[in-house]
C-alpha cells in the first residue's frame, strides 16, 4: 500500500478531492481534504481509517463523482469522493 500525502485543498485537478459530511467532518476535523491518485476507493478507505481509526465504527456511504459508489471504483486525480453518514434529526 502506497503512503498517501493528505493535504488541504487548493482546488487543483491534479488531486482527488475528499469531502466529509455530518459527524464524519467532525470526526476528521475537516470537511474537505485532497489525496494524490490514482488509487482504488478501497485503498483510500484503508488509508483514511488508519488516519482516523474511529471511522471504522461509523456507518456511511461513499459517492464518487456524485454517484453512489459500489466500492470497487478506481479513483483518478480530478475525482471527487464524498463520505455520507446517515442523519437522524428533524
Amino acid at each position, binding site marked *: 500500500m502506497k503512503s498517501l500525502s493528505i493535504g488541504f485543498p487548493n482546488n487543483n485537478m491534479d488531486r482527488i478531492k475528499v469531502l466529509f459530511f455530518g459527524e464524519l467532518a467532525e470526526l476528521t476535523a475537516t470537511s474537505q481534504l485532497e489525496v494524490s491518485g490514482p488509487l482504488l476507493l478501497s485503498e483510500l478507505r484503508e488509508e483514511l481509517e488508519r488516519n482516523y481509526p474511529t471511522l471504522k465504527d461509523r456507518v456511511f456511504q461513499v459517492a464518487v463523482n456524485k454517484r*453512489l459508489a459500489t466500492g470497487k471504483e478506481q479513483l483518478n486525480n480530478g475525482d471527487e469522493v*464524498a463520505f455520507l453518514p446517515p442523519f*437522524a434529526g428533524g
Partner: protein
Amino acid sequence: MLTNQELERYARQIALSEIGAAGQQRLKQASVLVIGVGGLGCQVLQQLTAAGVGRIGMIDGDRVELSNLQRQCLFGEGDVGRKKTEVAQERLKAQNSQVQLEIHEGSFHPKNAETLVAKYDLVVDASDRIDVRYLINDACVCLEKAFVYASLYAYEAQVALFNAPDDLGNRSATYRCLFPEESGSKVQNCQERGVLAVLPALIGAIQANEVLNYFLGLSEGLSGRLLLFNQLNYHFQLIEVNRHEKAKEWAKQGMRIRQQVIELSPEELREKLAREFPCLLVDVRDPDESPELTSFAGNEVLSKAVFEKGTAFTSESPVFICQTGVRSQKEALSWSSRNNKTCYSLRGGVLKLKEDERQKSQIHI
C-alpha cells in the same frame, strides 16, 4: 371543480401555465401523510396547507416543549404542554379552512404504519429518529407509496424523493438503497447535537416543494437523487442514487422482523416472568456500565458474552435489556432477523426498571 373563491385564493399558482386550474384541482384531490410535527413537519404542514393540498394527515405523539419554540413555528408559548397535533390542527385550520386536516393519535409504530400509509397518496418523513425512518421506508416500499425524506445533522441536511414511480411505473431508489442497514443509536438527532433555527424551515420548505412537484408532475425533482445542503456555506450537492434490485425484499423483511420483536414494559416483564419462570434475560450493555443487573425478579440476567457462547439458548426467545431500551431493540431486531423467531426488548431499559423499583418501594413504605 374549483370554486370561485379557490380560483382567487390560488390565483398566483394557477397563473403558472404549467399548473393552471387543472394542476390546482390535482392538489385539491391529493392526500399527504406528514410523519413528525417537529422542525421539518411544522414547515411542511404550513406550506402544504397554504398551497391547497386537499387532505393532510399528521402523526406525532409528543407534546409541545419550550425548547421546540425556537424552530417549530406552528407553536407559541401558550401551547407548551399541549399535544403537538392538536395545536397544529388549530393553527392550520385558521390558515386554510378548506383543507381537510386529520390527526392520528399516538406515534408512528410498526402496528399502525401500514394502515396509515395506505390511507394517503404520498408520505412525508419529517421524523427525528432513525428507526422511524426505516419504518417509514419499509411501510411505503411495501405499499408502493412514494415518500419525501429529509433529515438534519447540526448545520447540514439530506433530502430525497424515494420510491417514486416513473412514466413506466418503475420505482426510484429507497432509503435502504442509500443506507441498507439500520445504524442504531449511534446517529445523533437535533436534541443531542443541536440545530440552528432556520435549517428545519428551509429543508421543510424543500420537502413541501417536492410534494407539490410530485402531484403537479413539473419535473422528476429529487427522485433518485439525494440533495445535500449546508446551512453555513450554502453548498447544494446532488448525489445520484440507484434503486437496488433487493429494495422491496429488504423492506418486506424489515416489516416482518419488526412484528417478531415485542417491546415489554417492566411490568409486562414481571408478568411474563410470573408465567414462564425462568426466562432468558440478556444484558447487552458493556460489562462496566452501571447500574449493574445480574438478576431480575429472581431470574438470572446473562451478559451478552455469556449469551453468545451458549448454543443451548437458541431454542428460547430471549429478552434483551440495555440502559435505555435503544440498543436492546437493535439487538432484538438483529437476533430476530438471524433466527427468524420472536424475541423481546425491555422498553426504557435498566434505568426505567430501577426507576419503577424505586417508585414501588416508596409506595410500600
